[in-house]
């Protein structure tokens, strides 16, 4: 006979405190939890008293009933009635009040009370041996706890399922649920010895009745890890259960010691509880005495066994627990059989079978499995839905992450673009600064060069002026000598004239050059004027010369550089000079025309000409060719008896 550890008197989620604390404190806590902390109203106080009172419970319940004003008050009233009846083995009443409380609590939002009623109803049905209903309420409780995410309640209902499956002799399932509960409680940071011992006990008794005593003892003895010294008062059930396992191993004396210790613990607890004969009081003693009676007859002490069986019968009856009665009848039948008291043995056997049949009928077994299948299906569906939701969430998460990556990518690209633009901007700025610097440097360089050239030109001008004045002085000196001394010497006179005319020619040349230097550009019109001046002077010597200068109107504004202009001027001047001086020409024509993109200058005279091949080219001709070549022009000379023609192509 095992004691399934106090049948779990759960009035609230915090059963722990019942086991740990003094009863007065416990009831105070219960009062606070059940009825609310902030506003202590009359009905709640009264219900508190009704629940805790040993003798005046009914009186207080009647007062509380009169104080009911709201649906919540009514729910609390039935909730307390259910709890009280459960604890005091008024099983049918507990069922009625429990169902009424459930209806009202479902309407409200008091989850701990709702879960507690489920637990109480499960416990009551289990006592009655209606395991299908007990399992049903456990599973309903688990559903609510799962919905509300109350893990401790789930673990608690798992332990309850383990005990119920044990009573139904479905030990593997009992072990399965017991281990689930144990796993949860052991994994908690703040370990609750009561909850752990409860789960350990559930696993152990399943192993025990499954004929696996070693495993049973292993789990039973683990309880002592959590309870030392005085605390062992809380685990009287474990002592009994260890004794029970040893009994099955035929270690009767050892078993007796453990069970006697359990009985002493129970008596001490009864004393400490100031004689409260609640459900546990009868249940524990029914267990202890049945076991002790069994040990006694196994040890052939039949008289002692007889006495103990009588006590066991009385407590079993009072416990209202089908399992206890069933175990009792079975053991007493065996005892009577051993004593050859067959009629009594048969009677007890019949009781046992009757109870057993009531508990294990086929329909119930079917309902039992259907209930569980339904729960498992629901659970699987829920898991399926949950996994679908998780997949959906993951997909959304992945989508969000992709989006984040995309945004991050775009931002990075934008950032790179900005950095590139800034870099380019800086580069451009530096390049611009370099360009500006180079330009300014070049300007400074050219300015310096210009200044130098300017200085050189200034020196040149001074020099030219000086030369010009010196030449003028030479000319005037020579002319004065000639005039003052009236020279008879022809040779001397010729030499002086030669010097004078040479100096005059040089001055003209000097002036021409200075003229060209003072002009940045020279047009044909300028040339024409200049050549006219030259011809006019020539005419002073030979008045019969006819001179024509024709320039295309398109070319009059054509500009040349000073060098080009000077070279063209000197060439034409040389040609005219040659025509006047050597060819004795009377008519000189100069034509400047445009031929396509080129300029053609023609200088033609009607002089006596000369043989081009026969005459060695003098400085004059060579100079003309050289000057035209310098300005990238073509020089062509033709001469015959009827005159000379020079063609220049520019």
């Amino acid at each position, binding site marked *: 006979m095992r004691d399934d550890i106090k049948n779990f008197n759960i009035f609230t989620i915090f059963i722990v405190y019942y086991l740990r604390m003094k009863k007065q404190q416990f009831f105070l806590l219960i009062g606070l939890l059940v009825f609310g902390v902030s506003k202590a109203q009359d009905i709640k106080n009264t219900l508190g008293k009704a629940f805790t009172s040993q003798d005046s419970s009914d009186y207080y319940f009647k007062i509380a009933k009169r104080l009911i004003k709201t649906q919540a008050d009514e729910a609390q009233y039935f909730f307390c009635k259910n709890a009280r009846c459960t604890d005091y083995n008024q099983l049918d009443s507990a069922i009625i009040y429990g169902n009424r409380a459930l209806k009202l609590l479902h309407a409200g939002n008091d989850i701990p009370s709702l879960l507690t009623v489920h637990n109480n109803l499960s416990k009551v049905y289990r006592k009655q041996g209606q395991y299908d209903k007990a399992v049903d309420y456990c599973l309903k409780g688990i559903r609510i706890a799962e919905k509300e995410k109350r893990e401790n309640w789930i673990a608690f209902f798992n332990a309850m399922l383990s005990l119920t499956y044990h009573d139904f002799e479905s030990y593997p399932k009992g072990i399965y649920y017991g281990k689930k509960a144990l796993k949860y409680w052991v994994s908690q940071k703040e370990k609750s010895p009561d909850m752990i011992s409860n789960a350990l006990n559930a696993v152990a008794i399943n192993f025990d009745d499954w004929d696996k005593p070693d495993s049973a003892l292993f789990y039973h003895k683990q309880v002592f890890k959590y309870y030392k010294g005085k605390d062992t008062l809380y685990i009287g059930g474990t002592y009994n259960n260890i004794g029970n396992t040893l009994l099955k191993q035929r270690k009767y004396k050892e078993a007796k010691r453990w069970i006697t210790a359990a009985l002493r613990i129970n008596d001490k607890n009864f004393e400490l509880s100031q004689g409260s004969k609640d459900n546990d009081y009868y249940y524990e003693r029914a267990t202890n005495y049945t076991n002790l009676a069994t040990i006694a007859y196994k040890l052939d002490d039949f008289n002692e066994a007889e006495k103990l069986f009588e006590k066991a019968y009385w407590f079993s009856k009072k416990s209202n627990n089908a399992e206890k009665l069933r175990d009792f009848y079975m053991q007493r039948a065996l005892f009577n059989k051993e004593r050859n008291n067959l009629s009594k043995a048969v009677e007890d056997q019949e009781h046992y079978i009757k109870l057993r049949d009531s508990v294990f009928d086929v329909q119930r077994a079917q309902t039992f499995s259907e209930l569980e299948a339904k729960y498992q299906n629901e659970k699987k569906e829920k898991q399926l839905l949950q996994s679908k939701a998780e997949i959906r969430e993951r997909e959304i998460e992945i989508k969000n992450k992709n989006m984040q990556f995309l945004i991050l990518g775009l931002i990075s690209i934008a950032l790179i673009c900005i950095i590139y633009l800034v870099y380019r901007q800086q580069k451009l700025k530096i390049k611009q600064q370099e360009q*500006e610097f180079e330009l300014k440097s070049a300007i400074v360089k050219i300015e310096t060069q210009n200044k130098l050239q300017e200085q050189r030109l200034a020196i040149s001008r001074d020099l030219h002026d000086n030369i010009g004045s010196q030449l003028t002085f030479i000319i005037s000196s020579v002319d004065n000598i000639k005039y003052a001394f009236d020279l008879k010497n022809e040779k001397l006179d010729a030499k002086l004239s030669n010097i004078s005319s040479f100096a005059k020619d040089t001055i003209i040349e000097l002036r021409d050059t200075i003229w060209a230097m003072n002009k940045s550009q020279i047009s044909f019109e300028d040339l024409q004027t200049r050549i006219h001046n030259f011809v006019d002077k020539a005419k002073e010597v030979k008045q019969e010369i006819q001179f024509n200068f024709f320039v295309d109107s398109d070319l009059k504004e054509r500009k040349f550089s000073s060098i080009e202009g000077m070279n063209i001027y000197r060439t034409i001047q040389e040609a005219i000079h040659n025509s006047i001086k050597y060819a004795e020409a009377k008519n000189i024509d100069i034509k400047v025309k445009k031929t396509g993109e080129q300029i053609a200058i023609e200088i033609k005279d009607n002089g006596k000409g000369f043989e081009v091949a026969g005459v060695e080219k003098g400085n004059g001709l060579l100079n003309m060719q050289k000057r035209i070549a310098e300005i990238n022009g073509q020089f062509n000379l033709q001469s015959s008896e009827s005159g000379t023609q020079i063609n220049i192509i520019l």
Partner: protein
Amino acid sequence: MFSERNAFASKLEPLEQLMIQLNEDCKNQSLQIQLSEDLKVKMKEVNAALSRNIFDLNYQLFEDSYPKNER
């Protein structure tokens, strides 16, 4: 960026114009110097020719005056 480029271009434009102008001036000065150099060469020739002529004249004068002094 374009506005900065335009600003820079407009900033550089007067400098470029100045540069072109200075280049033109430089080119003209170079031509003038070249003319001056040509003239210098010419003047050297003229100097040589004039020296020769003056020498001839002096020689002639000495030649004419020598018999007179002998007498």
